[in-house]
């Protein structure tokens, strides 16, 4: 029997369609069908200046907009050879790690909800809401902050907000204990997740799978450690790994990652260096808004950057970061003009989703639901 799961179905986390071929309750074959949310972001980017693309990146993975911002601006900074101030690097880390926590919280709530546990969603969204409020205070918007700039950040983060962030990072581990009390030793939860959707390390690497899925299989690859960017070297944190590579291990890995992220945030707030939040004297960096009223050169520079944009040298760069979902990479080809010749996004969700077929073949239908939500896909990123 053929069953059409999605594209409008709550457990497909967006507009994913999976054509399932069933024999009784056994999944004989699964064919994911994607593209329902394709907006042509890579095409749009070819008609935008390097600054204007920042807001497009927010709309890729909307559950981790800060991570997308970060990956993109780091790629442009690599192309322009800009070294940014330490303070900006630390604040970027704080925001990216808060984003990781927010993304994992949302995943945990919806994942548990898919498997029939309704309560955790209410608790996890409570903590996620705190992070969204922090983003609102920092950037002026919650879901699509667009806060990072080429050369640093759009604005300074003040002391009061840093205090809120620190308080949050301190009490988060207790809240994670709460979630664990609901799920970790729960026999129904275990029977729904243990031994389900197993991927081995070799299968993950063959399929290009990265992020928590790869680590739950026992491989320790985390780009924050293997190819550190933005001062991650300065922080002390562990990379949690699993052993069996099933849905349960991915749950444990993501919970442990949130604890590690909270540790990084605390360290970053404590050791936050003084200094500017953006380097002004670098190619392509917008001047201070206030300087436009008093400094004619700043005004000219601003005018040039807004009307023409920055023109990077001819060349191509690839840069990737560890987003909440895995390796998020941007590949930029510059032809020396003010628009990129090509902007390619290497979306972790897109690549990880390929592993779905392997996870569900020969298993029962209810395990397919667990497998879809364990990947933690965001369809806006899959389809771009």
């Amino acid at each position, binding site marked *: 029997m053929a069953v059409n799961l999605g594209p409008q179905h709550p457990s497909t986390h967006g507009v994913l369609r999976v054509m399932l071929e069933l024999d009784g309750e056994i999944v004989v074959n699964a064919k994911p069908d*994607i593209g329902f949310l394709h907006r042509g972001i890579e095409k749009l980017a070819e008609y935008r200046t390097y600054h204007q693309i920042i807001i497009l990146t927010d709309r890729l993975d909307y559950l981790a907009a800060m991570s997308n911002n970060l990956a993109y601006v780091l790629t442009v900074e690599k192309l322009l050879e800009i070294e940014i101030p330490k303070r900006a690097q630390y604040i970027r880390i704080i925001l990216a790690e808060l984003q990781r926590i927010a993304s994992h919280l949302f995943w945990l709530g919806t994942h548990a909800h898919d498997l029939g546990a309704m309560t955790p969603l209410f608790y996890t969204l409570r903590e996620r809401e705190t992070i969204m409020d922090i983003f609102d205070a920092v950037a002026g918007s919650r879901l699509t902050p667009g806060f990072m700039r080429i050369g640093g950040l759009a604005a300074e983060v003040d002391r009061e907000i840093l205090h809120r962030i620190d308080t949050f990072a301190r009490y988060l581990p207790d809240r994670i204990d709460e979630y664990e009390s609901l799920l970790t030793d729960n026999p129904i939860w275990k029977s729904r997740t243990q031994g389900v959707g197993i991927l081995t390390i070799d299968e993950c690497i063959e399929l290009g799978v990265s992020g928590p899925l790869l680590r739950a299989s026992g491989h320790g690859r985390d780009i924050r450690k293997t190819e550190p960017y933005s001062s991650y070297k300065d922080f002390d944190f562990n990379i949690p790994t699993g052993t069996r590579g099933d849905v349960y291990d991915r749950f444990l890995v993501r919970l442990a990652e949130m604890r590690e992220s909270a540790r990084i945030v605390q360290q970053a707030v404590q050791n936050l260096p003084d200094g500017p939040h953006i380097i002004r004297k670098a190619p392509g960096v917008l001047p201070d808004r206030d300087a436009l009223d008093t400094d004619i050169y700043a005004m000219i520079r601003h005018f040039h950057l807004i009307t023409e944009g920055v023109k990077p040298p001819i060349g191509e760069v*690839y840069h*990737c970061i560890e987003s909440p979902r895995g390796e998020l*990479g941007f*590949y930029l080809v510059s032809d020396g003009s003010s628009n990129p010749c090509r902007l390619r996004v*290497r979306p972790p969700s897109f690549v990880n989703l*390929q592993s779905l077929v392997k996870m569900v073949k020969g298993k029962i239908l209810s395990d397919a639901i667990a497998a879809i939500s364990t990947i933690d896909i965001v369809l806006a990123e899959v389809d771009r």
Partner: protein
Amino acid sequence: MDIDILRKQFGNGILDISYFRGECTVTVDKEIIVPVCRFLKETEGLAFDFLSDCCGVDRLSDRPRFWVVYHLYSTAYNHRLRLKAAVNDDNPVIDSVVSVWPTADWHERECFDMFGITFSNHPDMRRILMAHDFEGHPLRKDFPLEGR
């Protein structure tokens, strides 16, 4: 990473090796893309077991017009390499590397969908993001941004 070993192995098939911003780019003849990929994956000291990304690039005014770009990563040695092969406009075909890295499956389908580059020996060469009856290839430079 000793990349000159590629020159020794493939001679004139390696068209260029260049460095930019600390990244190494190797341009190869598209006819030998599969042997090169297999060599890069299986040679001790290179061991590019992880295909990060594979995508197309349209250089409308250049001849040949398209590039197919592979971003490789080695989990054992933690190094990266960019591999590039040029593909002609009038016959945009290149061999599929799915047999080397199964992850290339969807990447190559997307590249076909967006640029019209066909990958021979691909197990399932059809569109992935656009509708199956869609006409044209949106990421080509001569495809308009809006309106047709």
